[in-house]
């Protein structure tokens, strides 16, 4: 395979990839769960702790000013990364899950009443299901689910039928974390907007693999996690349109999210601070900015191209494995290969792959309803990042062949 960027030199930036597992060089194919970090990200953390660590937004002293500047510069970096109109529309959270919970609460308080509906799809991650179930339970609302076909593709006509004035929000994943299928967001959002329905996009599995433009998508909310895009754990992003954020009440109280606090009456700060209660993870946000710069320097186009080649290569190679069953025939698949080995439980497959130095994920991938719909309890998922190579795939293929032989 010819790749447009030098994967070997990119890999050098990820020390963990040199590690051995049970004596075998690590093949890390669990990137959809979390990604590895380049040196620059970890160095940023170290430099920040040893050079400019002080609480942000609060003090007049130099360290605090530097920390605040780094934190706010990270907001601008994120803004540019997803092409938001203003940096005030970027809210830092702990992760995709918290971003969605924030919307479920605050949007729910502002806009939802008994009898209203929230629309999601059958392929959502639990983090884009449970917050809505909790909202629906609290407010006596209904959760409606867009069905998918047997391949895992969303049924657009069914979606269209489910739209109604009762629907207060569509919450949909950009890319499925099990199937890698990309949803037709532009058309979906256009249709929802034509009926005045705002749309939240769960971008957890998209941002590391394709260039995202929230304005072009016209998404009202867009959520993702730093740790899935080569950044630190503990940080997430919620993009939201100003106009919605301004109408929504705060989610958590305390710290810098206030304007004036009196026991009788408290007024809130302006956005984004209204939604950032407590000391933010200002070291984490600075490190996330570093990760985004790392990705931008490689270029998402090159990343997508490399991953596409990897995926094609993987499908070709793995299809040669006896008993290999790819899950879902999908036209546009991103960086994820979900599969079963016929007659072998995926737990056994994952466990033995580990002993051969290959990290994949098995189980229900926090998407039980999707697996149930596809008629299975668990599956194996190999998921890529730009640092993966065709050799990784070769190792996977060889390992699966070997494992297959162990069960006969």
């Amino acid at each position: 395979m010819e790749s447009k960027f030098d994967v070997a030199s990119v890999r050098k930036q990820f020390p963990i990839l040199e590690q051995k597992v049970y004596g075998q060089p690590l093949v890390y194919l669990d990137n959809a769960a979390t990604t590895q970090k380049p040196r620059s990200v970890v160095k940023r953390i170290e430099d920040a702790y040893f050079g400019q660590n002080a609480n942000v937004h609060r003090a007049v002293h130099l360290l605090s000013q530097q920390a605040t500047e780094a934190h706010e510069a990270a907001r601008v970096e994120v803004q540019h990364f997803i092409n938001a109109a203003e940096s005030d529309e970027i809210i830092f959270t702990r992760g995709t899950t918290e971003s969605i919970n924030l919307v479920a609460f605050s949007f729910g308080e502002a806009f939802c009443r008994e009898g209203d509906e929230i629309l999601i799809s059958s392929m959502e991650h639990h983090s884009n299901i449970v917050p809505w179930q909790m909202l629906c339970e609290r407010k006596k609302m209904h959760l409606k689910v867009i069905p998918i076909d047997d391949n895992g593709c969303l049924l657009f006509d069914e979606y269209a039928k489910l739209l109604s004035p009762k629907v207060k929000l569509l919450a949909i994943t950009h890319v499925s974390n099990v199937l890698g299928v990309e949803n037709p967001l532009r058309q979906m959002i256009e249709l929802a907007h034509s009926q005045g329905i705002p749309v939240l996009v769960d971008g957890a599995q998209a941002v590391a693999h394709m260039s995202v433009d929230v304005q072009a998508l016209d998404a009202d909310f867009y959520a993702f996690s730093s740790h899935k895009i080569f950044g630190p754990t503990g940080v997430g992003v919620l993009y939201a349109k100003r106009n919605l954020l301004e109408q929504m009440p705060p989610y958590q109280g305390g710290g810098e999210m206030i304007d004036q606090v009196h026991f009788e009456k408290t007024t809130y700060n302006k956005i984004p601070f209204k939604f950032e209660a407590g000391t933010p993870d200002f070291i984490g946000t600075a490190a996330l900015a570093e990760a985004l710069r790392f990705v931008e320097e490689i270029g998402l186009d090159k990343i997508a191209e490399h991953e596409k080649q990897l995926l094609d290569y993987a499908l070709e190679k793995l299809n040669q494995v006896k008993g290999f069953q790819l899950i879902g025939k999908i036209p546009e698949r991103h960086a994820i290969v979900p599969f079963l080995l016929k007659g072998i439980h995926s737990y056994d497959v994952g466990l033995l792959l580990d002993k051969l130095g290959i990290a994949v994920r098995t189980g229900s991938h926090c998407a039980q309803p999707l697996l149930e719909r596809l008629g299975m309890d668990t599956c194996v998922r190999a998921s890529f990042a730009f640092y993966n190579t065709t050799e990784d795939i070769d190792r996977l293929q060889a390992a699966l062949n070997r494992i297959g032989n162990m069960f006969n």
Partner: protein
Amino acid sequence: MNIDEIQENIIQSFDEIEDWMDKYQLLIDMGNSLSPLDEQYKKPQHLIEGCQSRVWIHASYKEGKVYFEAESDTVIVKGLVYLLLKIFSGRTPDEILKADLYFIERIGLKEHLSPTRANGFTAMLKQMRNYALAFKLS
């Protein structure tokens, strides 16, 4: 043989094997040789659900001894179950309750004892002890 002798036997047969994959091959072979659980016992009340796999377990008590039958949907866990039954089935409740199960760690499979709930193995072990206790008190 008492419980510890069986454990030593097991440890020895795994110790002879160097390669990880060969150890697991042995476990798989053991799993495949486990006699299937009678369908009547594959009911929710006998099920122990892990996050990624399931174990069904049935116990009976005859003449002061506890007999276990069990099965899992994954062959590797079945292999572990095979070993457990070899150790526990046909023992008195006291033997079971007093036993110190060190073989799992010694054969290098302690990951299966981790508190994460990937497989139902740890829960099954607990359940076997519960059965023993219940029979003892009955």
